[in-house]
């Protein structure tokens, strides 16, 4: 896996789902939905608010257990009972709610669940954390994203601005994802500069051969990055389109229901 730039359409999807259903009381969040992610590609998922995009990626990443349907990773059926299991399989997710511990510091949040221990006896016997190292890496990752306004790396996450918080979450996923990276609206709260950096980061990750699922409402960004676009509507996959064959207007018309796609594309 070392293809650069363009997506490679192998026949076998790396992550896929069949016939997923998830109901919350009277609300049907996912309604018999299929889903496919090919190796090395950037797959954008677009759709109205409440269409069920977040629910879908939660179902494939173990954060929610679907009522019906199956999930496959590299062709093998998987049943994730918790996000930890998905992570152990190399699936890293930035949830829309960010999944941060508000009272803990930036570095603590970034390394949550995979803290770095000191070297030598302090680390192996006394299991002492190497706070300095974690802080340095955290600072570095944030600088990579252009988040230079964070004045104090030991600030609690709850005291960060909305965009800073999102930046921390994205940096975390980018740093640790190994097989699939899922980003649910990663640039929603970000400024122009920071958004740009995230887009660069996404391209960079793909160039390392790791496929990415990108949920976004920003059409220019989606059309700029995506290899394929999954259009979600009313809990279902409406169609998958190739951004080179359609315009942004078409995509928006599909997702809002103004226009019907002729056939399932791509």
């Amino acid at each position, binding site marked *: 896996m070392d293809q650069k730039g363009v997506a490679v359409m192998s026949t076998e999807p790396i992550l896929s789902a069949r016939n997923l259903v998830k109901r919350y009381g009277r609300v049907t969040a996912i309604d018999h939905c299929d889903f496919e992610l090919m190796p090395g590609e950037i797959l954008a998922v677009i759709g109205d608010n409440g269409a069920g995009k977040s629910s879908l990626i939660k179902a494939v990443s173990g954060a929610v257990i679907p009522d019906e349907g199956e999930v496959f990773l590299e062709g093998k059926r998987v049943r994730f009972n918790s996000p930890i299991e998905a992570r152990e399989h190399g699936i890293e997710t930035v949830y829309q709610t960010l999944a941060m511990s508000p009272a803990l510091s930036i570095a603590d949040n970034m390394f949550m669940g995979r803290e770095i221990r000191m070297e030598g006896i302090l680390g192996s016997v006394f299991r002492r954390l190497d706070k300095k190292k974690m802080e340095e890496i955290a600072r570095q990752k944030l600088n990579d994203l252009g988040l230079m306004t964070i004045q104090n790396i030991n600030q609690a996450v709850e005291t960060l601005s909305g965009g800073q918080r999102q930046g921390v979450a994205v940096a975390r996923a980018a740093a640790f994802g190994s097989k699939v990276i899922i980003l649910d609206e990663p640039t929603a709260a970000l400024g122009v500069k920071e958004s740009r950096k995230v887009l660069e980061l996404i391209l960079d990750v793909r160039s390392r051969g790791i496929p990415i699922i990108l949920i976004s409402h920003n059409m220019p960004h989606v*059309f700029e990055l995506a290899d394929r676009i999954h259009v979600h509507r009313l809990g279902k996959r409406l169609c998958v389109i190739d951004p080179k064959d359609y315009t942004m207007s078409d995509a928006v018309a599909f997702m809002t229901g103004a226009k019907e796609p002729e056939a399932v594309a791509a």
Partner: protein
Amino acid sequence: MANQDNYESAVNASDKQAEFDYERKGIVHRIQHTLHMTPSLVPLVVLLGAIIVFAVILGGRFFSGPTLTLILQQVQIVGILAAAQSLVILTAGIDLSVGAIAVFSSVIMGQFTFRYGIPPAIAVALGLAVGTGIGAMSGWLVSKVKLPPFIVTLGMWQIVLAANYLYSRNETIRSQDIREQAPFLGFMGQRFEVGSAVVTFGVVTMVLIVVILAYCLRSTSWGRHVYAVGDDAEAAELAGVNRHGTLMSVYMLTGFICAIAGWVMIGRLGSVSPSASTGVVGNIQSITAVVIGGISLFGGRGSIWGVFFGALIVGTFELGLRMAGANAQWTLLLIGVLIIGAVAVDQWIRKVSL
């Protein structure tokens, strides 16, 4: 950037509401849905279950008017305190002083009547006022000084309890004296019969308090504000809720209801005694009822009906176990098991009902 078309204009969609089919499978789902919509019914289911089990084991001895109403009488004080406690817990607080306020108020009512010769009705009113006042102090410390409710009411508990002993000089007012000289103090203990059931005004008062609070919490702005403050005080304030006013009203109302519990206590015990165990164990009993009833200790979630049933569940277990012949120590142990069991069943019903 590639496609710089005016894509945003493509949104003039058919503006119709999203619709999915709501169909579910038959009666079981219907029941589950009902339970899910009104979670306070869940403790009721547990309660009915407990009553049925004991009725099967103990037969008519248990499942009779007098015994079932005896449960109501035994829980009336805890029930009223739990109603008061619910209010505070809904605001994400906790009130450790409920029992102490009840005892102190009853002492005030009694001593004002007998020590100073104040007419009983006025003494009762003064007792209610003192309870409200104590609540106001706690409320002020919680809301203005922003101290944790646990600490404020823990301190108040000790202060009120100590004041109670110091003021009363540990003297009990005997029931004979109350019956002869100030029957109004014992009013809440008066009983009337409905068929084979025995009901006291205290029990009626408990039910009334629950009904009124349930209405206020559900159907008035004040109730919505109580939930909002408990849910996320900061968000509520940003959204325009008067946090201070709401908290003050809650703590004062709690103090007032506790004082009513004090009056009910005089009716139930006949006498006025500063050393009633409610002062010490009333807190934990009321909190237990609240939590069994499904109100979250983190505030903002749950209903007062659940609390009422929660109090009855504990009362039913206690009486049922004693009648089944468990001795006091075994009863304690079994109640522990049953409390956990009751809440586990509750949780389970809620889960499948999703």
